């Protein structure tokens, strides 16, 4: 016994120069968890909050009750899922490249996390609203958001629907169910509750989906959101993307003594599930279930998507300073694109040759759109909207003091 109480300072299992170590992560077999009833309550969801819903097994087969739940999903839908992810990856790579060339001051990839946004979005309906973080561009890609607008935002040119107001990646599209990203952490998780409450109050069956990273579950507003949803039971889905790293901070610093993030919801009486986020089929199945539940008026639900942030936090970050270089390759749940491809090949729906060809085609079409968008201005050749636009939208109507300032600016 120490002579006085001490403190704990969580540390990751491996640092640069050491071998990646995921031995503490328990990966249960695919297909081990049943499909729960839609009216699952918090207590009964405990095995889901502590376990891991997996559909694709290590051999690339879809197994278990959650796979059966997707039995009516056609091959075309799964192929589209693969193409969504390939498109997302191509867009990310091209825009990262653009940042390296100085064409945008900033970019941020979602590499390794493509399945989560891509599969979730394809289960949503028109009029549903996401409250994303800055790493959910995959929602836009899978919503068939025009890549011209997506890339235009990165270059702040006239393809940017928000006319250069925000930092790259802070998209906004009301039409495509993508709430305006503020860039602050956690703040928008609780706004999803309010949006869902407004839907319910106005007699709509549309739902809201909040998004948050593992790091930002530490924010006040994460807890505000769970509490508010616990009280009013609105049709909201809480998506917690646990990608293991909050910039340089190991996920254990946000988790503390909790085993999973999903479990946090149980204390608020909100059922929760933990899901293999690198398994497109698991994401699709659980998203479908959760969305059906919310739309049926059965209240909020929380999902922890278990994944790994393969890329740097952003182009301003260098992860080799704080985590082992080979950690991404050592991630025990693999790569979402490879896993879905493996499954489709195994089912005889796809081949390595077709995949390579499709990947090249998608890359070509992304490059073609990128060239077209870059021709309208980049950070190297800035063609922003008129600076006078900065006064537009501060209020619905411009008050006199802003008119005076606009004139002082020369407009």
């Amino acid at each position: 016994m120490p002579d006085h109480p001490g403190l704990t300072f969580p540390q990751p299992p491996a640092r640069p120069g050491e071998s990646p170590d995921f031995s503490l992560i328990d990966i249960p077999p695919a297909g081990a968890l049943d499909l729960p009833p839609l009216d699952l309550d918090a207590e009964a969801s405990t095995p889901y909050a502590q376990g891991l819903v997996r559909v694709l097994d290590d051999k690339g087969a879809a197994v278990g009750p959650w796979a059966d739940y997707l039995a009516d999903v056609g091959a075309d839908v799964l192929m589209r899922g693969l193409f969504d992810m390939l498109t997302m990856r191509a867009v990310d790579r091209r825009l990262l490249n653009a940042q390296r060339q100085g064409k945008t001051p900033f970019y941020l990839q979602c590499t390794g996390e493509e399945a989560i946004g891509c599969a979730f979005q394809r289960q949503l309906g028109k009029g549903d609203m996401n409250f994303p973080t800055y790493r959910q561009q995959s929602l836009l890609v899978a919503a068939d958001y025009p890549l011209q607008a997506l890339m235009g935002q990165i270059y702040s040119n006239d393809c940017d629907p928000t006319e250069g107001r925000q930092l790259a990646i802070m998209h906004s599209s009301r039409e495509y169910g993508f709430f305006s990203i503020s860039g602050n952490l956690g703040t928008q998780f609780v706004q999803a509750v309010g949006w869902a409450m407004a839907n319910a109050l106005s007699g709509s069956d549309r739902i809201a989906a909040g998004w948050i990273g593992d790091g930002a579950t530490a924010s006040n507003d994460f807890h505000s959101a769970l509490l508010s949803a616990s009280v009013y039971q609105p049709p909201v889905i809480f998506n917690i993307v646990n990608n293991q790293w909050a910039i340089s901070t190991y996920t254990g610093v946000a988790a503390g003594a909790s085993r999973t993030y999903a479990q946090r919801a149980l204390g608020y009486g909100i059922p929760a599930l933990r899901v293999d986020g690198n398994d497109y089929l698991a994401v699709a199945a659980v998203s479908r279930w959760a969305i059906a539940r919310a739309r049926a008026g059965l209240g909020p639900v929380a999902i922890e998507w278990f994944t790994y942030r393969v890329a740097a936090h952003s182009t301003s970050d260098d992860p080799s300073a704080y985590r082992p270089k080979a950690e991404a390759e050592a991630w025990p749940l693999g790569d979402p694109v490879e896993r879905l491809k493996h499954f489709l090949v195994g089912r005889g729906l796809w081949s390595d040759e077709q995949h390579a060809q499709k990947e090249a085609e998608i890359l070509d079409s992304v490059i073609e759109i990128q060239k077209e968008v870059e021709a309208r201005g980049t950070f190297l050749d800035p063609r922003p909207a008129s600076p006078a636009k900065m006064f537009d939208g501060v209020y619905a109507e411009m008050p006199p003091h802003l008119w005076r300032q606009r004139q002082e600016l020369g407009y």
Partner: protein
Amino acid sequence: MPKMTMIEAIRDAMDVKLAEDASVLVFGEDVGYFGGVFRCTAGLQKKYGVERVFDTPINESAIVGMAVGMAAQGMRPCVEIQFADYVYPAYDQITQEAARLRHRSNHQFSCPLVVRMPTGGGIFGGQTHSQSPEALFTHVAGLKVVVPATPHDAKGLLIAAIEDPDPVIFLEPKRLYNGPFDGNHEAKATGWTSHPDGEVPEGRYVIEIGKAAIRRPGRDVTVLAYGTMVFVAEAAVRACGIDAEIIDLRSLLPLDLDTIAASVAKTGRCIVVHEATRTSGFGAEVIAEIQEACFWSLRSPIQRVTGWDAPYPLAAEWDYFPSPARIARALLKAMED
């Protein structure tokens, strides 16, 4: 004398205090192993251990709230908020807790803590990485608010802040971290090593909180600025060829009214420059003080050059950031009879 960037000077201040005072603690988001997203705490965890320099969850009110409890119980926390734009969840802890603890307990408890945060624009950060929220803190009784403009001042002021018996908001102009910046964004960036203000003494020294610095003595007009705007104002004055007296306020609260009033009494003209939005900005407070102290010495209306009253835009950054040209126009206006 060693040359340092502002980042190195800030790190050196914490290093000095961590070494000589076991009650000093440093923590915040990414500040431990990694050493902060701007590297201000790099190497400190390795040197002083995880119990004195550590990473926190992403919760600013927890960072400051813990610091309040620690400070009240005899520690001297020097915490980092990753960007000033992220401080708002901690606003309650800062304004209603840290700022008032000494007063409401009639000195039973006190709160000697420092909240460091990078502030200001000019780095293509958009609206959540560019704000200058100093006026939100200068409006609060019980806080001290400091903004260094040079590595030399940053180190001396940060040591003074850590040693101060009351809570200090320490705003670090991030555009000045690696070198002075005069507002000419198309020019090649220069580092602190080639600048005289990059000379930073070794060991402990303090710059007294509450004392402004006269950067350039002059007779014709007083220019009041702080943070990045000190260098932008210097560039504007050079371009105009006006014999301006440039004062770096350094400490906004308490404000060095003696130095300001003596200067304005001499010149009879004044302009105030800051990056923050105009309405209810700190410039308004300074101007109110000056007109009370120097009304009969003033020969022209006091001019104000500030950020516009709009959220900080990304693409239009250089139309928002107060430019040397805008400051020059204000100088010429102040010079009119």
